[in-house]
């Protein structure tokens, strides 16, 4: 294939491939928790608030990724406190943060001369422009994610599964919930490099949702989601190179097609099982 040959020659493609793999690790590890806890809307709010941080960083002359990280953590903590204390207003307030983040980002970028091009690349991502320093940052962030999730796996599990029981066992629910949202925030920043702001939710939720159809424990789901993310991002990169189409969009659509196939396949299997069970019970009735 043309892509494999090109991969040997162009280091921007090699970096893109590595960035895709690192993003797959992050989205597999954290996406599992997002899917199981059903908080992709929260992740969306964090992702869009990130734009505000990036805009501000550009305007004041800092590295955009630093601004993105700060904005992501701040909005994660804000959303966490809201969902813990004002649950009845949660969706309104998250929507507000979502919109305000974008508005701030657009204003700052408009006020910064010559950066209009960057807005598009943040919205849709440009994996082909990933620099080697980005790769290092992604590697460190992945490592931090993996270590924290490994050390506190049981605590996260009980807090996400049953908050009340976690409290009774002396597990600090607020602390672990906010920590999880911060980890989501960090992952969102990782993924923005690869697929961009708008498609972050796809890569965060689809691989884990596919994995959740086949495996039934959190640790297996994290591993399976990571592997699915690796396949999706690599094949997406190859396909977009061959067809000269935007990489983030291709990666997202491949994930969506996998998800659709898995869902339809599972529904078909469940229906067959049900039919078999009905037939079996019919046979038993005849026999008796």
């Amino acid at each position, binding site marked *: 294939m043309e892509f494999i040959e090109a991969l040997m020659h162009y280091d921007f493609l090699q970096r893109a491939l590595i960035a895709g793999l690192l993003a797959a690790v992050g989205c597999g590890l954290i996406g599992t928790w997002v899917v199981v806890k059903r908080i992709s809307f929260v992740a969306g709010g964090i992702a869009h608030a990130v734009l505000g941080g990036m805009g501000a960083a550009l305007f004041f002359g800092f590295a955009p990724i630093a601004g993105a990280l700060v904005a992501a953590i701040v909005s994660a903590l804000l959303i966490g406190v809201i969902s813990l204390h004002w649950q009845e207003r949660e969706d309104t307030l998250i929507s507000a943060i979502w919109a305000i983040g974008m508005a701030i980002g657009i204003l700052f970028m408009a006020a910064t001369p010559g950066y209009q091009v960057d807005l598009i690349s943040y919205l849709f991502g440009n994996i082909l422009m990933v620099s080697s320093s980005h790769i290092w940052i992604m590697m460190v962030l992945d490592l931090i994610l993996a270590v924290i999730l490994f050390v506190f796996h049981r605590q996260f599990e009980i807090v996400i599964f*049953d908050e*009340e*029981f976690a409290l*009774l066992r002396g597990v600090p629910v607020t602390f672990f919930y906010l920590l999880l949202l911060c980890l989501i925030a960090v992952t969102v920043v990782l993924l923005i490099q690869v697929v961009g702001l708008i498609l972050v939710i796809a890569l965060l939720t689809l691989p884990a949702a596919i994995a959740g159809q086949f495996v*039934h424990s959190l640790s297996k789901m994290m591993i399976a989601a990571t592997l699915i993310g690796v396949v999706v991002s690599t094949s997406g990169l190859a396909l977009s190179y061959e067809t000269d189409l935007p990489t983030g969009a291709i990666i997202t659509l491949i994930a969506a097609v996998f998800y659709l196939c898995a869902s339809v396949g599972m529904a078909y299997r469940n229906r067959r099982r049900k039919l078999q069970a009905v037939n079996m019970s019919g046979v038993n009735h005849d026999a008796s």
Partner: protein
Amino acid sequence: MSDLAVDIHDLSFSYDQVPVLEHVSLQIAHGEFVGLVGPNGGGKSTLIRIILGLLQASSGTLRVLGKHPRKARRNIGYVPQYPAFERDFPISVEQLVLMGRLNGIWGGYHAHDREIALQAMRETEVSALKRRTIGTLSGGQLQRVLVARALACEPRMLLLDEPTSNIDQRVESEIFDLLKQLNQRMTVIVVSHDIAFISAYVKRVACLSGTLVCHETDAISGDDIRDLYGEDVRQVHHGH
């Protein structure tokens, strides 16, 4: 003092100015099997949550196992009314029961914890289900698993909030037989709206309808029940 599992004195609680519990006093000795009954909205679950230290009483005093409720709650096995979790959560029965072994910020599960969890599953007769995911369990099986999780805490007292509200009557009797057996070594407090059913098992019922009245189970008359519910209890029961 130390021979009381629960010592509540003149306790009141209100949600946003609306009084839920008023001047409730209740003493439960170690080893008792007490039923907490009353109409919906009578404050049963609220009282349970106060005993667990999940809610703070507006006034009055409360000691649980001779301690402040927040300090006592790790020694209490709690079985919630409606499980707060999603039934499709990817977790096995064994992992769920093991949650009773968690303690504080640090740590996973050791061989010792698995042994205790297994023992709890044997006692509630769910050890054969330990590899099953919770989504595949029936209502009665899930309830037994939740009791096993409470037992895995190695509790001195069991608190159950309507443990049989989602399951049929035959399984309900099985669960109460199990509770009676567990009562031989620990205090058991069980919330129910079905006074007629639980009187056959518990030694004492506390009737909660804003305020508290206690009865020995053999002394309950139809009048008491009508006073509490304002109608015949059978009608209350059939309302579900």
